[in-house]
């Protein structure tokens, strides 16, 4: 399956001005997905910034099939998601993915750890990020079955980034915990990621019926919420 295969089957007019653009779009979307999942699953140690890099590469590949307005919307959404992940890192004083998972394993999900004001700011940040993910998805939901499935995989990677930052504890390996505990932990990740994906998908369906101005207003709202929450969290560091 390739990210461009939906476009090939004729479900919609080809978005490609030439073969080179189609090829680079598919290449960057695939490479970005690998990079993002490599860091987010813990296969490779690194920071949230590296995972955002994978999402940026995916966004670039998607943007190559979009018009200018859709490109702006997708990139603004990417900026909000990246900023939201940064706000979470600011709460824990680290951008290191392993440290964020570990601290959440001890203290609980970032969303629920007090003081109340900071927890509230984090919830606002998470909501802004989820809405941004919906806007990101709505900018180009994909064409054809294969294209939509590929977009779904990319959305799952973005959702996994949000779950890692706002909710996810470290998954205990079978060596350090019982098999049941590991399975429950992994199931929790799958359910949480699926939930964020559902929210994004539902949001994108709603956003799909909105005009460009309403979408721009939603993006500005996300940015405003993120800035406010970021300032609040930053002031308490």
């Amino acid at each position: 399956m390739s990210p461009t295969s939906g476009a090939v089957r004729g479900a919609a007019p080809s978005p490609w001005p030439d073969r080179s653009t189609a090829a680079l779009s598919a290449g960057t979307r695939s490479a970005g997905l690998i990079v993002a999942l490599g860091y987010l699953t813990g296969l490779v140690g690194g920071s949230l910034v590296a995972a955002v890099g994978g999402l940026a590469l995916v966004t670039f590949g998607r943007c190559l099939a979009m018009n200018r307005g859709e490109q702006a919307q997708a990139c603004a959404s990417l900026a909000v998601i990246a900023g939201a992940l940064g706000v979470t890192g600011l709460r824990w004083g680290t951008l290191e993915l392993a440290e964020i998972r570990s601290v959440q394993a001890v203290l609980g999900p970032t969303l629920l750890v007090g003081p109340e004001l900071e927890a509230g700011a984090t919830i606002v940040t998470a909501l802004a990020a989820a809405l941004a993910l919906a806007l990101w998805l709505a900018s180009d939901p994909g064409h054809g079955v294969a294209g939509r499935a590929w977009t779904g995989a990319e959305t799952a990677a973005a959702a996994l980034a949000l779950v890692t930052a706002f909710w996810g504890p470290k998954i205990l390996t079978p060596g350090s915990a019982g098999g049941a505990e590991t399975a429950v932990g992994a199931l929790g990740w799958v359910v949480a990621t699926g939930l964020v994906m559902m929210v994004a998908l539902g949001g994108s369906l709603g956003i799909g019926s909105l005009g460009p101005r309403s979408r721009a207003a939603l993006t500005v709202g996300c940015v405003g919420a993120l800035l406010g929450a970021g300032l609040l969290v930053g002031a308490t560091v």
Partner: protein
Amino acid sequence: MSTFILYAVHAALALVLAPATFAPVHWRRGLVVSCAALGVASGAALALGAAGEATWRSVTPSSPRVIIIGATVACGWLVVGARRREADPVVGALVGVASSALVAATLNDWVVVALLFWLASSLALIGLLARGELRVGALLAIVVSDLALAGGLALHSLGERTWTMPESLTGLAAALALMAFVIRSGAVPRVGVWEVLGTPAAPALPLLLGGPLALLVVPLPGASPWLAAAALALAVVCCVGALAITPLTLTLAGAWPAWLALGLALASPEALPAASVAALFGVTAVALWPASHGLARPERGMILGWLPLTAGFVAIAGVAVRAFDNVAGAGGAAEAAPWSAIAALLPVAAAAGVALGARAGRQTEPTSSDVVAAGSVWILFAVGLVVGLIPASSFGFSSRDLGSAAPALALHASALVLGLGAAAVAWRRATPLDPASLPSVPVRTGSLGYSEEGADTVVMVAIAALIGLGALTTVVYLAFEGLSFGFLPARNL
């Protein structure tokens, strides 16, 4: 001796090219391309292999300067080779002279010698500007920048009573150096050095950016995180401007890497090599655009956008982590404020880069038939990907910034290989639109700030000559003062 060859080879190529003006056209083309290929290889060898080599006379190939200047001259020669259709050996000869002079200036241990070589490189670049129609705005930008640079370094030398190149600059000297960088590097869009875009003098663009990057950005970091935040904000402004304006204005797109490199280097000295190389590649891609329009579009977009898997994103990610650490470890709000601004601007810059890259990637315009020019963009793209694979720790960032070296390298290399596979599948299966159905929108290249109608060229050239004379006088004064008071360290006496 071996490093001396890498310094002087460009001047030697100039000696080969200059007499070729009188050769038949097809000979000239072959000679220009051959010399350009040699120049690119020599620049790459200087960047990759010369760091840490012994000092030759007063030229020390210290890192990161040698990496930056090596990449600079390689980019300059790449543009010369890409414009082979013009088959103008004089352009190549002037690039060769400017390259050797820039290498000797930026790697020099002594201020006076460095400034003399710098002025020599400026003279060669001014000669380049005069090919075809004289670009007065670019001429003025070069001489004003030179005067500011000479003034800044002279202030430092006179204050410290030393001829050694400064490790750091402060106060007025730093302000003048920063001014020199901004004017000469192309950070000011649409005017000044951008007048050469789309002209035979286009190979000057990478040299004009790389010289100040190599010479000045070493003593400037640490000046102020607020300056870094301001430079990053201006980078975002240039990028958003390029995105908003129709048709795409190349000078705005070209100013964005200059500001971004400056901002990142001011925020964290470790970012300097990666940011400089990314900025040079970005400006070179812009310089190649008029010759390769309509070809290699998405590749050019990826270079311009500082996207992941290229060197630019390594610099952005490294500085983002550094800024974040500084916010978390700040003693108070005043200390945290500039780093917070930097941390907040970087996601915006990264996303703006993605948007700019995508816009460049989808820019439909009349297609050039110059495959050599497009091939130069592909070379830049491939080298950019290879440089991006270098672990962040090799650039001086801690291993936790972008992942520990070996696993991160394995992941990025796997992503690259799988990406190439997906690209190959998509290439075969994609059905592109009929080119006739696509809008054909030419991009906007450089424009003359001072045309024959706008100003008296003779007067402007006279003013430029006076300013240039001022720069030379400053250097001569510094030399005499140094000789009078003894500005050489005791070990050199």
